């Protein structure tokens, strides 16, 4: 990556010059964060005592979730979404939006421990689709659908002031710098990959990885594994300079909100009236979500652009096919998402003498009555499922890359400075920069 920066043409170098090093540091931080995610380990616990007297441990009872607050959660969600829409579209006050954000952080985050969470709810919905026996609770359904509905009507007001994950990042965004727009666009592929992996994980019964790797829930609940706390902490430190890194470069629910918001009936505008082209707002958005007017003069002919667009459209099926091919090769790494496959591989590895010692999972399995063959058969079946899922995932990513290439190649005429309907979080930072007040 660094080599690329060093050899790019001078004209392009201009794009990176003002914040290239900072962005490189940010990317390095993201990579470091990812390194922390993968070795996430279980929380430290003291083992159960052993008794030689025949005393048997009482069965561990996990109390069922309390539904007492669920009704209130729905009411508060609808109310905050409504207030956010009013603050963004009518009142146009950044301070009011921010205060509502703090309320959501305290209520949905610290008070309700970050659950139910709209971001994670897509997994419940997917589980309900894959398994008809899986009942999706009404509250989860509302938390999934309401932000999308509001996004269809008013843009991403959920991200602006209701989502607790967005709120905690908004709270720490002290000195946000702009990531180069082109890097922002390239990194925007990551939420799609995460979404695809999360859906594959749910459909194969490998768990809710969005919840497992939620970087902020550990803060909301005042407890998580050390590595997850480090991940969350680093994400917040990064968020001081690169505003909302999780929302922009990871959030899988943001993909759906982006799609809905693009179709929104009403959306936040930078100016309440006609844009006077003063350019004061250009530097106000840390999310690169302000689209500038397109230049009048195009450096290439219309036919050349159309020809390129046609080629890209033809390329999309090929990219999907390439994705299917590559995805079909990912059976082994993808299947490791499933604990049963991991256990089967561990047991097989121990039988092959690859490990010097057993681990706690393999010991527990070996102490059970389950024969190895049964575990192996289940793992093989799961791997077959992951092989199928890998193809779908590859096809999805191929399609997304193709669509992104097409989207950037379609000529859209803009005469004013406008928020990008898909990526704008409706945070209201740009409002105060516009001199037009009525």
């Amino acid at each position, binding site marked *: 990556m660094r080599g690329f920066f060093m050899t790019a043409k001078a004209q392009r170098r201009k794009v990176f010059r003002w914040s290239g090093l900072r962005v490189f540091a940010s990317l390095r931080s993201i990579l470091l964060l990812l390194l922390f995610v993968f070795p996430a380990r279980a929380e430290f616990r003291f083992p159960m005592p052993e008794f030689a007297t025949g005393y048997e441990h009482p069965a561990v009872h996990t109390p069922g979730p309390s539904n007492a607050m669920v009704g209130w959660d729905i009411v508060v969600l609808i109310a905050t979404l409504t207030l956010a829409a009013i603050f963004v579209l009518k009142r146009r006050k950044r301070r009011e939006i921010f205060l509502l954000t703090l309320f959501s952080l305290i209520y949905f985050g610290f008070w309700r421990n970050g659950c139910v969470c709209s971001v994670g709810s897509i997994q419940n919905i997917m589980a309900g689709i894959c398994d008809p026996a899986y009942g999706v609770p009404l509250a989860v359904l509302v938390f999934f659908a309401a932000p999308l509905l509001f996004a269809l009507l008013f843009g991403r007001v959920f991200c602006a002031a209701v989502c607790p994950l967005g709120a905690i990042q908004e709270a720490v965004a002290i000195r946000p710098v702009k990531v180069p727009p082109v890097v922002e666009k390239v990194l925007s592929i990551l939420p799609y990959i995460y979404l695809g992996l999360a859906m594959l994980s749910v459909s194969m019964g490998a768990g809710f990885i969005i919840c497992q790797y939620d970087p902020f829930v550990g803060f909301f609940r005042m407890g998580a594994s050390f590595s997850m706390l480090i991940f969350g902490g680093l994400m917040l430190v990064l968020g001081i300079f690169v505003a909302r890194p999780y929302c922009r470069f990871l959030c899988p629910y943001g993909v759906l909100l982006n799609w809905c918001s693009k179709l929104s009936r009403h959306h936040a505008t930078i100016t309440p009236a006609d844009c006077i082209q003063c350019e004061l707002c250009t530097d106000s958005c840390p999310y690169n979500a302000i689209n500038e007017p397109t230049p009048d003069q195009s450096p290439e002919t219309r036919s050349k652009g159309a020809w390129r667009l046609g080629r890209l459209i033809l390329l999309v099926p090929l*990219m999907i096919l390439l994705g299917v091919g590559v995805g079909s090769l990912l059976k082994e790494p993808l299947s490791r998402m499933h604990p049963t496959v991991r256990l089967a591989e561990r047991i097989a590895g121990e039988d092959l003498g690859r490990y010097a010692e057993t681990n706690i999972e393999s010991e527990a399995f070996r102490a059970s009555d389950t024969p190895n063959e049964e575990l192996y058969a289940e793992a093989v079946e799961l791997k077959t499922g992951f092989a199928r899922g890998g193809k779908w995932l590859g096809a999805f990513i191929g399609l997304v890359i193709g669509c992104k290439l097409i989207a950037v190649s379609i000529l859209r005429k803009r005469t004013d400075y406008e928020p990008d309907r898909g990526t704008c979080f409706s945070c209201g930072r740009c409002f105060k920069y516009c001199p037009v007040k009525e």
Partner: protein
Amino acid sequence: MAGNREFKQRPILGLMTQSVAIVAALFSLVICILLMADFVRIQKMDPLNDPHLLQLREQLANTTEGSEAVIKQIRTFDLYARRAFFSNQEQRRTGGLLLLGGMVACFVALKLSILWKPKLPTVGKSDKVDHWELNALFRQLMAGTGIFLVVVSLFLAFAVQSDLSMVLARGDEQAGKPAPHVGQTFQSALPEEMKANWPSLRGPGGIGVANSTNTPMHWDIESGDGVLWKTEVPVHGFNSPIVWGNRLFLTGGDEEGQEVFCFDANTGKQLWSKTVETTVELPEVTEDTGYAAPTMATDGQRVFAIFATGELAAFDFEGNPVWQKNLGVPTNPYGMGSSLISDGERLFVQYDHEESQKVIALDCASGNPVWQTPRKHISWASPSLIETETGVQLLLNDEENVTAYDPRSGKQLWTVKCLGGEVAPSPAYNGKGVVFVANEYAQASALKLVDGTPEILWQYDEYLPEISSPLAAENLFFITTSAGDVVCLDAATGEVKWEQEFDEGFSSSPVLVGDRIYSIDLEGVVHIFEAAAEYKEIATLEMGEPVYATPAFMDGRIYIRGDENLYCIGDE
């Protein structure tokens, strides 16, 4: 925008909040470092494997007297460890709250400083990026990203290898290869050391054939003539003695406890005894099975004992515990009857009970499971290890089938449905590729192994065993019954060669010693006769007490466990 309060500068307030933010940040940093140091310290803690605790545990395992004091020390140690753990939890929780408080103060101060010292908007930026250039660059970078994803995916696809696939491929290879080649991966033979000793019920491989041939044929218990030593059996049990070198092992069990005993095979002196503790409730057993019916086994370095409670324990030859585990209380109408057997590396446990049926192979040294294969029927029979031309096979009888397994992988090699009723007799093998099984209320069957798989040669259903296992000589097959009948059949055809009726029935299994057969009836009468197509008695000797166990034969001596005494028959 002029006069807009949004951009009003308040430098003093801004400076103050900046200072507060710095102090709060430093405070948070200190707390953060302390929490991380605490975490590192905790990671190094291993209270369960603390040397002091391990020493106390070892002390507890080795002491019989004063163990209460050691237990008390262990409990105190455990209490302190737990108290330290929960105190630490509380400290960490407090630290977390302080960190959160510090960070909130820091961020609030920073937000206020920005509010009071807002950054003014700028116009006319010189580094404004060309729209078309940006789009072109994006297309190139996105294409690069796609290529990068493909490369990473290919790397992952080839870097992540599957151990499971290797294990399954190995299993398929073993199953798919024709029998003569299977021997390359199968265990070819039992270790010679095992054959030179008496490591399990019915000797090496558990097939009732002794390697020693110069065993006594005449002795007198009353006068002591020919009796090397006699010693009292400390605790009752129906299991048989096993012998390795100059050590003899057996177990005893009752409602009071379960014990393992080691005797000097030369003198009969008890060298040590160990109680096998259990935490489970004693199961109901019948009088003729008891709590210690299964015979022990040894791999030459350790001895293994299992009891009616499902408690399985390993000791070294000095009596030091090596490992112990409970396999789950067996549920069956009589009690645990199946004995143990080892091939020198693995210990095999036939665990066919009402609720679950399985055969388990455990690593002798660690007790860790090597494999476990589910089965379908209940059984009281004991496993045998036979050396076939395709390798060693583990044979198991149950109430319907005789089944062979690969001792290394647990993979089922073949099964034949030819048994019935409540099966206690174990399989017999003539060393020439013919397996024999028999049980009362079913029939006796001879199974010829062709390329490792069986064909039924013949079946016989007149005199059948109930408890005593049948015996195979090279060309003959012998059955001893609970009614006192002894039958000799032709191994190849099943033709009855002779029948002999005795006064008492047999529980002990007959043993082939050279060209002679030793069989002891329930009254303790030892019948010695030729292993020949015609019945020829060699001797009939009385032990003077009931005998239920199968004797052990080694180095010209016979070790017989009577109901009350243990005998060594032989010369110096």
